[in-house]
């Protein structure tokens, strides 16, 4: 049932990804990339990874589109590639081989939603059984992110904050 609806979405994904690469003008490419991340978010929602879908919709379709447009308005809008066609043959042979290799490796992965897979046997039962008692939070994702891995989240926030400050310093300097 999941599979039958995923197929048109995946076809749309491939179409939009190819369109974003092939379009010569960069402003349409940005918009096609925005629709690509809409479809990616829908695929995530189909698979049940709702938080990932939400982040993809916010960052991919919203923020990234605006940032790309901002960059394009300050720079050139035409696609000027450094090496146009010399690597095309190698890409046509190499990328399908790489895809085949990845598909071959994906055969060994546990099935989707398998309760006996290593990821759902090792630590996640501990979190699922104890999180309400330990943290008094009904949402397990929140309790893992903000409680069990609070230090990790704090340092991630510090990293992002530092990057933001560095960007603000660099960009604010050129305005003077």
């Amino acid at each position: 049932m999941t599979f039958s609806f995923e197929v048109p979405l995946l076809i749309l994904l491939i179409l939009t990804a190819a369109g974003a690469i092939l379009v010569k003008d960069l402003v349409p490419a940005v918009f096609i990339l925005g629709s690509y991340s809409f479809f990616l978010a829908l695929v995530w929602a189909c698979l049940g990874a709702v938080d990932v879908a939400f982040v993809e919709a916010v960052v991919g379709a919203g923020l990234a589109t605006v940032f790309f447009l901002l960059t394009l308005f300050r720079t050139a809008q035409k696609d000027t590639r450094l090496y146009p066609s010399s690597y095309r043959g190698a890409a046509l042979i190499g990328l399908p081989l790489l895809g085949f290799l990845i598909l071959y490796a994906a055969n060994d992965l546990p099935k989707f939603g398998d309760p006996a897979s290593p990821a759902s046997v090792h630590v996640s039962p501990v979190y699922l059984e104890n999180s309400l008692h330990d943290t008094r939070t009904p949402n397990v994702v929140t309790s893992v992110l903000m409680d069990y891995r609070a230090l990790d989240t704090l340092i991630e926030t510090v990293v992002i904050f530092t990057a933001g400050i560095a960007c603000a310093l660099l960009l604010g300097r050129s305005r003077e």
Partner: protein
Amino acid sequence: MKFFFLFVLIALAVLILVYLYRVVQGPTIYDRVLGLNGISTKAIILLVLIGTVYERVDMFVDISTGYALLNLVGALAIAKFLEQRGSV
């Protein structure tokens, strides 16, 4: 009933293709913004329908509401840039 919802899902996915044509082909940037907006409205309905198929509508309604709000903000941001820049 599930088949009906699946049919609607696939019909909406086909409808998105029409908007996608406008995004890819659209002569001006405004056509592309409108096409992207249309795609995102279909995506909101698709999210609610996916929730109906999975029988978790309450959660997916929240998500699609957030999606709609963010889409409004994104469209406003693009419109603001276009206004500042003039026609592209």
